[in-house]
């Protein structure tokens, strides 16, 4: 469901209202004190929130792009070489999606529509030093997996109401020490905790 706040400046203005700040921002680049401070923390706060929650609107599923594969049967006939083979002890490595903030799960390609015997698939996110410079890759033992991840979603109109509420509260807490006072920050910290808790409940 689309949120009523349609732009980053709407989100920041909501946060400013929460801490009792009297002025508004026209945009995050309008040069005011509040917009400057908000611009500094906006992207990182949004990404952290997207990464830490189970927000379904941010979920993406893609087929992994295989980069390297270990020799079938192991390294009995070929010694391990980081340039050719994936980091040990994994069978395959896959490209890290550009807009990925967190890999939530890796699962094999589906066969039946509904898997009646679902089992977890192990994976990890590592730096592969076989590339120069080292490259962040996803490693797993499944040759053609589906990678499920939390994506960076920047358009507030794509967010759920819960997420927008949580982000506004988080921004307010971070802006309070500079634009209001520490007492307000404490209040906002509580507000942020409550909105996060409610959001977790409603996520599914």
């Amino acid at each position: 469901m689309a949120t009523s706040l349609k732009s980053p400046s709407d989100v920041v203005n909501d946060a400013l209202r929460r801490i009792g700040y009297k002025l508004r921002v026209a945009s995050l680049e309008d040069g005011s004190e509040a917009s400057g401070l908000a611009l500094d923390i906006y992207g990182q706060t949004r990404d952290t929130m997207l990464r830490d929650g189970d927000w379904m609107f941010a979920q993406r599923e893609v087929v992994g792009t295989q980069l390297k594969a270990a020799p079938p049967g192991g390294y009995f006939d070929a010694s391990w070489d980081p340039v050719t083979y994936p980091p040990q002890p994994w069978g395959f490595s896959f490209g890290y999606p550009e807009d990925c903030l967190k890999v939530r799960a890796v699962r094999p390609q589906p066969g039946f529509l509904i898997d009646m015997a679902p089992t977890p698939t192990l994976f990890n996110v590592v730096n592969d030093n076989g590339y120069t410079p080292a490259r962040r890759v996803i490693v797993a033992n499944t040759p053609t997996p589906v990678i499920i991840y939390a994506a960076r979603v920047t358009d507030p109109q794509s967010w759920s109401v819960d997420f927008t509420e949580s982000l506004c509260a988080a921004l307010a807490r971070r802006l309070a020490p500079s634009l209001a006072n520490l007492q307000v920050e404490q209040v906002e910290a509580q507000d942020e905790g409550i909105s996060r808790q409610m959001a977790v409940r409603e996520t599914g």
Partner: protein
Amino acid sequence: MSNDFYTPTAVAQEALDSAGIDFTLGNITEGSRPAQILLRKYTTCLHQLLRTAHWDFARKSAPLQVVAAQSGQWTDQEGNLVSVPTLVPAGFLYSYSLPIDSAKIRFIPANYWGSTPPIPSDNITPFDGSAPLTNGNGTLPWLTNRLIPSRFLLTSDPNYIPEGASNDIPGVSPIGQTLICSNVPQARAVYTFNATYPNLWDSLFRGALVAFLASEVALPLSTDKKFGMTMRKDNIAVAMQKIQQARVSNGNESWANSDLTVDWMRVRASGGYSSNGWASTWGEGPGILWGGYDGVLFSGNTSAF
């Protein structure tokens, strides 16, 4: 079409509800934290629970694939005499491979009535086309006779490891294969199979699995750990009661008799050739509960024996 009620996700959602976790699951493989934890526990709990009682719905009888015979000879599906390996663990005449879908072997019927005809030509071909050692259909006793359990042994044998064995097939690994040793030729096994489809389960099983799963996820998913501990304890109690009830119900449902003897003992009374205690000389029960069932250890050091 699919009925969503009979899916692992619906079972997992019930478990979340029973654990007091306020979260709506889209799919058990969706990757959210509750889904990840449920996914890690789901199959383990399912397999454990299948072993804790002789669930009627999970009973299966199927012919076994021979791996070795002490005599070195075997009659194949077409009735031809073929050579087979001879290394069989001491004390037994035949080694059979473990059915790929077995959760627990209940018993091997003693087929002392002779062998059955070969499998009809239009029957389903075993999935491993390169395996030449399939035996004929196990012998079924006369229609009116009950199944007599025979002695068998489950053991790991390092002598017959299929090429390319890894860790993807239960009972088959590069360091050994789990075999069933028996003295019954052309043997069938009566076993509990991995009934993964929830629409096969009876309501007690589903209820027990929900409670078992809830007891496993309550603590990791509760923000308030005290609450999580309470929910875990409560769900363990529910699971235990359902398992106990299932053992009684499955025994009763398997053996209809109006005699005034105690049914829960009669269903076990099913001896072999020997005279040994209350399961002596063929016994008089159907052998449904032969071999007993497994206990289950819940979190928090509680168990249902």
